[in-house]
């Protein structure tokens, strides 16, 4: 037997207290008033009864109550018996590439074979994964249930990501020794988003299933009012002739045929004019991956994405210049156009005015009352996108009124403070910075003379820091709302960021990051949180619930694979922390066994019995 908190066993010494009390403390009954005391003779009962334990049952119950209390607080557990076996976690790939004919069946067969290998007393868990990992079954010895759940697995629409299942399996194993059987088609793109690690006490068996298949997919679909362009790729190795349909999902479609050699892509143009609304392009191809045979696009009725730049008054219009110009440059792309307007004064901060904008940049608060700017906080909470750049015209203390309730605090901004240095990425894998690519190196070369002090609470994320380590760029999501705060300005007052080559890409990626691809018209399936819309189509998942096209990740169609050895080598295997493993095992055993609950229940019963006996004894004393 072990104890999670053995220090509480010291409390067992407390059982001596009732023993001593019962031995040495006598119930001092009040003297009985009487008249004829002169006729009574003294007796030597005191000395005779002192050394005898009074009320042995009461003493026993009291000692037991104290001992149970100490033991329950010490959280006891029984060591696992020798027959306890390390658990096995089956992780089965259900990305859309597993939808290739026979591939998921092969995965089920492999997983079932792995299940058959383990003994009936070995707990087995099941995880399915694509973009996300989902724990289908916690480790259990009910292998029949695992088999049934394996049978029920279907290929989804996500792309392969290996980090998720490995993290989930590690979480299921809770640091214990164990084994993971990963059944996948071993697509090399599964490692695209960083790597993960497994402690060396976890054995990883990778089972590759599926062979290369001939696959034709719609790689991209861009719809403008003039024309629609569908990019069709032959990801297989043999030439294929396919027909491609384009049109509204619920209406008659235009069809074109195209012949493609293996590994070749071709762009098909469907001339317009096209009205606003959802469109889909479908390729008719038997075999391959069914999920990538169609692609959706949304042509918005509105002419452009509305960007609102808020400044205090007309005199400060120059502060908005660089942001305006950046969006002007970005608007030349065929799929996106931005309508940038500059709002001044308190009128631009009304809830009604803010609701008109898809994206709001707040650069100045000169002459605006604090109570007026407070409307920006509910704007974000209601799903609005807001960028705050504090600077000489936007006092950090005023901006703090809006950002603090959302988890980001602003202060300082004193001119005498030391220059904070350039912008350094906190995590290069952050989508905003990852999309910037090489341009983020230019950010590091930015000269920042002054910045305000930003505090980032748990729940908010630091994207970038200054050279001196202070947070420079942070974000927080509130429901569908999104707030990004820059600790320096965007008007070339405190820095030279607007004249850096990275400025326009930064603004563009910032807008894309906050609004979604195509200014919110496209949303990657992996970014859709609502399970109802985690499939291709046009769904209300855009900014503030606007419709957006959701499509599968075309990179999943890349059939390049890694070998099992390469897979194993790509994984970091740090040594298991034995002490931590032992601790986790002890915690798990203690939680599973829950002896402390029985101890507390017994304690309750003991106290009830003690009070009943004590009460009965008192009643008897009164009668006597």
């Amino acid at each position, binding site marked *: 037997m072990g104890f999670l908190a053995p220090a509480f066993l010291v409390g067992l010494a407390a059982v001596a207290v009732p023993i001593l009390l019962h031995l040495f403390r006598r119930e001092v009954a009040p003297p009985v008033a009487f008249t*004829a005391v002169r006729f009574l003779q003294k007796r030597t009962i005191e000395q005779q*009864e002192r050394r005898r334990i009074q009320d042995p049952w009461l003493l026993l119950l009291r000692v037991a109550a104290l001992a149970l209390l100490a033991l329950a607080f010490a959280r006891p557990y029984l060591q696992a018996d020798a027959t306890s076996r390390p658990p096995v976690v089956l992780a089965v790939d259900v990305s859309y590439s597993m939808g290739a004919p026979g591939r998921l069946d092969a995965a089920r067969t492999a997983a079932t074979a792995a299940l058959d290998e383990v003994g009936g007393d070995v707990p087995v868990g099941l995880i399915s994964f694509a973009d996300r990992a989902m724990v289908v079954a916690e480790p259990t010895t009910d292998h029949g249930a695992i088999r049934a759940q394996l049978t029920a697995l279907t290929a989804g629409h996500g792309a392969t990501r290996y980090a998720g299942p490995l993290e989930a399996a590690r979480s299921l194993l809770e640091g214990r020794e164990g084994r993971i059987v990963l059944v996948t088609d071993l697509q090399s793109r599964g490692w695209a988003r960083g790597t993960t690690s497994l402690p060396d006490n976890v054995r990883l068996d990778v089972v590759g299933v599926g062979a290369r298949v001939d696959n034709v997919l719609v790689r991209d679909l861009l719809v403008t009012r003039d024309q629609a362009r569908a990019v069709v790729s032959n990801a297989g190795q043999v030439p294929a002739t396919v027909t491609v349909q384009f049109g509204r999902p619920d209406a008659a479609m235009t069809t074109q045929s195209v012949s493609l050699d293996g590994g070749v892509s071709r762009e098909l143009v469907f001339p317009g004019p096209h009205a606003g609304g959802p469109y889909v392009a479908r390729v008719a191809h038997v075999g391959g991956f069914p999920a990538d045979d169609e692609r959706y696009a949304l042509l918005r009725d509105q002419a452009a994405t509305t960007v609102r730049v808020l400044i205090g008054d007309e005199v400060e219009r120059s502060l908005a210049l660089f942001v305006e110009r950046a969006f002007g440059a970005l608007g030349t792309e065929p799929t996106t156009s931005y309508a940038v307007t500059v709002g001044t004064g308190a009128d631009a901060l009304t809830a009604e005015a803010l609701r008109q904008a898809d994206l709001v940049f707040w650069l100045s608060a000169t002459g605006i009352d604090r109570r007026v700017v407070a409307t920006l906080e509910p704007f974000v909470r209601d799903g609005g996108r807001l960028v705050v750049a504090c600077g000489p015209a936007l006092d950090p203390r005023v901006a703090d009124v809006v950002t603090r309730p959302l988890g980001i605090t602003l202060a300082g901004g004193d001119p005498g403070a030391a220059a904070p240095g350039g912008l350094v990425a906190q995590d290069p894998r952050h989508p905003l910075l990852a999309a910037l690519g090489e341009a983020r190196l230019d950010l590091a070369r930015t000269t920042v003379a002054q910045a305000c002090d930003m505090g980032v609470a748990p729940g908010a994320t630091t994207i970038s820091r200054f050279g001196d380590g202070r947070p420079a760029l942070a974000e927080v999501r509130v429901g569908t709302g999104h707030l990004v705060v820059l600790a320096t300005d965007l008007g070339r007052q405190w820095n030279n960021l607007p004249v850096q080559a990275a400025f326009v890409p930064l603004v563009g990626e910032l807008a894309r990051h906050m609004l979604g691809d195509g200014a919110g018209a496209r949303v990657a399936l992996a970014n859709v949180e609502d399970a109802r819309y985690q499939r291709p189509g046009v769904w209300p998942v855009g900014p503030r619930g606007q419709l957006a096209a959701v499509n599968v990740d075309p990179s999943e169609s890349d059939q390049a694979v890694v070998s099992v050895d390469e897979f194993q080598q790509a994984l970091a295997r740090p040594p298991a922390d034995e002490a931590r493993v032992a601790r986790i095992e002890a915690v798990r055993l203690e939680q599973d066994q829950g002896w402390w609950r029985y101890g507390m229940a017994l304690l309750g019963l003991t106290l009830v019995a003690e009070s009943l006996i004590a009460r009965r004894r008192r009643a008897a004393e009164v009668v006597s």
Partner: protein
Amino acid sequence: MHAAAPGPSRFLSPEIVAGLGTLELKARTIVEGLLLGLHRSPFRGSSVEFAEYRQYMPGDDPSTVDWKVYARSDRHYVKKFEHDTNVQVQLLVDTSASMGYRSGTGMTKLQYAQCLTAALAYLLTGQRDAVGLALYDDRLRDYVPSAVKAGQLTRLLIALDHARPGATSDTAAALKQVTDRLRRRGLIVVCSDLLDDQPRVIEGLQLLRARGMEVVVFHILDEAELTFPFEAAGTFRDVETGEEVLTHGASAREAYLEAVGAWRETYVTALRGAGIDYQLARTSAPLDLSLLGWLGARGRTL
């Protein structure tokens, strides 16, 4: 003519008497119940005062027939006469702390003594005896001289009603103080638990008797004092002296009962030997029964 032997249910239990309102009501209830049992007054004093003649009627006591009148008139007349004040009665009530004791839910010894004394006062003033009252503990606390006058009974009852348990008792000293105030011989009734210096008490009472006083002692004791029903070990504290004795009830009982028996026997022997009436009055016993027990024995002398 003897009083009919009353059944236990006819008597008033101390609990019932205690529930009655005023002391006068208690006294009257006790005495009326008592007389109901006796059918006729037990008090037949030797000194009577002529009131009137009445023609003899069947049932009249032949001894009351005036034979001289018969000789003169040849008619049978009986004499009707009032009792004269021929006895001076002094009631002594012990109000020491020990008299405040009770073991159950009934009366304390003092309450019992109050009722008993009140009943006697009611009875005696009714036959126009001069009744007085003395309350004492270690000294005389209250004293109402004996007299025959209107409102005497009320004075006696008020004084009795104000009696509260006091300090230790010194019966001998109280007896001496009362005796000094008495002008002539009479009857002295002592209501006490006699938890006192026994030789001095006996000596004091014998002295009174020697001076020609009729003395009656109601020895009022609680049931617990007579039976010692305590079982557990514990400390017993004397209500008067504060003395504490640690003992075991069950094992100490035998010795206690023996000592109490000897103590009582000493009183009985010494007092009766001196011609003093000794009447044990248990607080659990009906009041009228206690009274009757004594009147049955002494009624002739009153």
